[in-house]
Every structure is written in C-alpha cells, then in structure tokens.
C-alpha cells in the first residue's frame, strides 16, 4: 500500500520542474553528489510542510472533542473555572485580543518612527550603533523580560497610576510592545528602504522639505510594508506566553470597559501554559486547552495570511514598498 503511495509521490516529485543553472547540460548525467544533496534538500523541504500538517492534525485531534464534550453555551460563556467544568473561553479570547491590540497601539508609533529615524534621518554612525542594538533587543529571552516586568514595571505601574495592582493588561502590553518592536522596526525599515530613490528626488525637486518628503511621500509609499510589519509584530505578540503570564495577573475576568486595561486579564497562551502541566491526559479540561490552541492557531494563521497577502499584492504591482 504505502509503497504505491511512495511511488506516486516519487513520480510527482521527480517530475517537478527544477530550475537549472544556465549552461548545464540536460542530457549528461548529474554527478552523484549533486543528486544526493538536491534530493536531501528536497526531502527536508517537503518534511517541513509535513510537520506543520502533522502538528495541525494533532491539534485538531486533541482539541475538537471539546466541541461535543462541552455545550456551546458553556464553551463561549464568560467564566473560566476549569476545575468545576466551567469552560467559558470568551474572557480568554478577549484578554488576548485586549493585550495584543494595546501592545500594537504602543509599538506602532514607536516602531515606525524609529524605523523612519534609522532609515531617513540618522547620521551614519548612529545608524551603525542603532541597528545592532535593535537586533539585540530581539534576542532577550521573554522570561527575563517577564522577571523585569514583574519586579520593576508592575510596582511602577501600580504606584504611578494608582491602581490596585500593577499586574495588569497594560503592563503586559508594555512588555509585548517591547518584544514586537524589533520585528516592526526591521520590517518597516526594509519597506522604507525599498521606496525608489526617484520618489524622494521628485519630492525634493518639487521643493518639499526633508520632513515633508518623509511624511507625505516616503511613508505613504511604504504603507503596505508597514502594515506587514504591524501584522508580523501582532503575530509575535499574540503568541507570547511567558512574560504575559508573569505580569498580567491571569484573572479570567471579562475586559469589557476601556478601564479594563488597568485591570488584570488572562490570555489564552497563559492559560494553556499554566494549566497544561497538571491536567489529566484525555480529560475534558485537556481537550479544552487544545481547543484554545486551535483558536490561537487560527488567529495567528489569519494574521499571517493577511500579512502575506499584503506582500504579494504589492509584489504584483512591482516591488515591496
């Protein structure tokens, strides 16, 4: 059975067009090593797709049972008490959305202006220092940031804003903004970089000042690239777990009012991370946690698709801007 399947796969694979270097002869047999390396790379490439599919099927297999084990009214209710079979995921979904949107609201202006500064107006020496520093920012482990947030930012938030506790959605959003900044800055910078020089020259020739050129011509021309930057940053923020779990307080309350930003929230990622360790394999709670995993997977998938489609749209028009 599987031999037939493998054979048909082999036939398909072997018929796929392979781009050849110009000048290489079609008829002469390839050296053994080249074939070996080529097919290894091919197998590895396909296995990546296979792994993603396997993970997705695993997620579905473990998570879908929750749909018939828990009534829909319970599943999309407003209270999450898994120990007592109350599995309302709404506060968790809203919590994740709340923290992520707040994080992007903080990171977007910071990131884009940093990118504009690094790209357009920083002197060469400053750019040389700033760019590696931004890369270093991306390398800080999230648990370290979480510790920093728990011991430094949370007390500061509590005393300066005079709220009951510093473990709030806002604290989480600040940390997440900090974490998604490197992504946003480097992608937005690439977008600014690919704006043709002729645009700038034309604007300057029309008598626009440097500021007017940047703000009215270069940034609008790069806006789809900036949108991609924001979406990639969002993908990073929504999936972040450790730092969020340490600073958002993890109270599964419904964040309905605007003031909820200064109240604790519980995100989907923190819920899975905190509860997965002790949950009995195959129980309703276990399936519910995988159900949350499916929701997360779908959300990040949608965000990535949106980002990718923005890139492709622009590519078709000629170049990422």
């Amino acid at each position, binding site marked *: 059975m599987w031999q037939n399947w*493998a054979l048909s796969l082999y036939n398909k694979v*072997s*018929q796929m067009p392979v781009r050849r270097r110009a000048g290489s002869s079609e008829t002469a*047999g390839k050296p053994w090593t080249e074939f070996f390396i080529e097919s290894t790379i091919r197998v590895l490439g396909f296995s990546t797709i296979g792994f993603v599919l396997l993970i997705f099927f695993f997620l579905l297999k473990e998570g879908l049972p929750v749909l018939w084990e828990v009534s829909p009214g319970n599943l999309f209710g407003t209270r999450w008490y898994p120990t007592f079979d109350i599995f309302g995921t709404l506060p968790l979904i809203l919590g994740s959305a709340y923290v992520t949107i707040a994080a992007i609201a903080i990171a977007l202006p910071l990131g884009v202006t940093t990118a504009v500064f690094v790209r357009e107006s920083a002197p060469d020496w400053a750019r040389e220092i700033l760019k590696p520093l931004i890369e270093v920012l991306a390398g800080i482990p999230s648990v370290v940031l979480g510790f920093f947030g728990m011991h430094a930012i949370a007390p500061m938030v509590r005393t300066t804003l005079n709220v009951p*506790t510093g473990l709030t959605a806002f604290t989480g959003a600040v940390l997440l903004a900090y974490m998604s900044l490197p992504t946003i800055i480097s992608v937005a910078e690439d977008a600014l970089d690919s704006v043709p020089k002729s645009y700038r020259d034309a604007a300057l020739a029309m008598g626009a000042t440097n500021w007017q050129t940047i703000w009215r011509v270069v940034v609008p021309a790069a806006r789809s690239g900036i949108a991609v930057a924001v979406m990639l940053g969002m993908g990073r923020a929504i999936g972040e777990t450790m730092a969020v779990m340490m600073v958002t*307080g*993890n*109270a599964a309350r419904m964040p309905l009012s605007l003031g909820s930003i200064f109240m604790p929230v519980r995100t989907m990622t923190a819920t899975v991370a905190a509860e997965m360790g002790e949950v*009995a394999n195959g129980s309703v709670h276990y399936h519910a946690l995988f159900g949350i995993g499916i929701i997360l997977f779908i959300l990040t998938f949608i965000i990535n698709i949106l980002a990718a489609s923005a890139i492709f749209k622009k590519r078709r028009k000629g170049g990422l801007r």
Partner: protein
Amino acid sequence: MTYIRDRKGRFSKPLLRFSFFAICLVLLIGIGVLSGRGGKKPEIAGDPAGDAQAIENKGSDTLVNLALAWAEEYMKSHPKVRISVTGGGSGTGIAAMINGTVSIANASREMKPEEIWAARMNGIDPVQFVVAHDAIAVVVSPSNPVSRLTFKQISDIYTGKIRNWAEIGGENRPIVLLSRESNSGTYVYFLENVIRMGNDKSKLLFSPDTLLMPSSEGISSEIRQNPNAIGYDGLGYVTEDQKVIAVSKNENGPFVLPSAKTVKNCSYPIARPLYMYTAENPTGQIKDYMEWILSGGQTLVAKLGFVPLQ
C-alpha cells in the same frame, strides 16, 4: 522497476533511485519511532528473575509531588526497588488499594467508614500512616495593619463581597486577591474548606477578579510590594517578608497563627494531616520504605512546602 518513469538520464541509475527512497524511508522510520516512543509508558513491573521489587503508589494529587520526591530519593539508595507514583485523587488511590492493584495509597483525608468496610469485605485490612502535615497560611503585605481574620471574612473577601480593607479594620484600600493556579491542590483545599467553609452544598467560587499566580514566587513578590494584596499558600512556601494572618474558624476566635506547633496540635484551622495507607501491616520492602518516609524522608517534606512530623 519499469513502472518508474525515466527522466532523460536524470534519475536513470537504479542506485540513485534507491538512495532517494532510502532517505524517505529513514525519515518515515524516524518519525514512526519517535511517535511510538511517546505513546508507550515504560514498564516498571517487578523483575521476576532478580530480587528487584516494584511498589505501586497511587492517590492524592496534593501528595503526588511529595510522594514522587520520596520515591526518587529512596530509589537512589535502593537501586533494586522500583516505585511508581501516580496521582488521580485520594478516592482513586484508596479504591485501587482496596482492589489490590496498588500497595500504597496516598490520601489527603482519612478513609471513610464505608471504604474501610469495602476493604474488609475484600479481605484487606488497611493500615494508616500520617506522613506529613499540610497547612495553608493566609498572607498580606507587611505594611498592612490587618493581622487577624475569620473564615467568614476570608470567604467574603475571596468571593468579592468585601472589596476594601476598611471594611475589615484596615486602611482605605482596594483588596487585590491572589491565588495559586486552579490546578494546584492548595487551590481546591482552600476553596472547599475556607471559602465554602467546609459546606459540601455550597456553590461559592473564587471571584473572577482573583489573580491566579503561576508560582509561589509570583505570590510572594506581589505580596511584598503591594499593600493591597492578600494571598494564601502552603506554609512551607511562605517567606520571611510576608505577614502571616492569624485565622479563626468562628466569630470570636481563638485566632491562631500557623506554625509547626499549632499545625501538629490541630489548633490552626486551615491544616490537615496527609496519609498513606498500606493494604495490610507492611512487610519487607514496603515496611522499609514506610519507615524511611517517617524518619529520613521527612527532610524532603519541608522542601516541598509541607510541615514535617517532627
């Protein structure tokens, strides 16, 4: 091999074809082996040939970490003994002991009369050992003037009825509720015995505003710096820089502070002994293990946040 399409000299050599398949095969087998290994549990049955012995230990989720630590420590000095520890709850462990599938049951409560009766009917005479004590301390920030609370007050605080420290004799500050994550045994015990005040029919739950902290460190760090906060945790996890509250079950007291002494003489109300039950008077390896738990094993008890016997 005639049904393989010839690709104009590209894959014409059988050897090359073979190598391509070999890679696929190796990958497939690799995946198979990895996934197969994940599904199977290691067998720890007794080795009939040697003098190795297997001890099955099952029960309370509160005790499971302590029981695991004991088993690991004991197996270090007794490499021939295999002890397997599983959770599942006190009732599950006791039922398994009654059915004869485990030799030691862990329980965070005493056996019920009907369970003892069922065991006797099965020809099993369970023997009870108190192996450690579990006490939960209620803590606030050192700067908080409140120093004593009744069960009723704690219950009202954690269900969100009392929202300001001024209502219970403190400063005019909002109360921030801290709790361990819902999967910890401490969470369930605190809910059932303090918030629901031991009433089985009570449907009270933690207020949705309760902050669920993933670790004891999370609770202690918030308690340390936030004068609004109230929290609870296993007595062994409470550090010096938290203020422990004296607790009373009734309106008028007595208000008791948790300590090794008050826990042992049962005057502190949020405490319970933890038990292990053996199917009969233990002999041989099981006897040795139980004796070790009651003597040498007690050093591990405090490390895991419980109160040791001595």
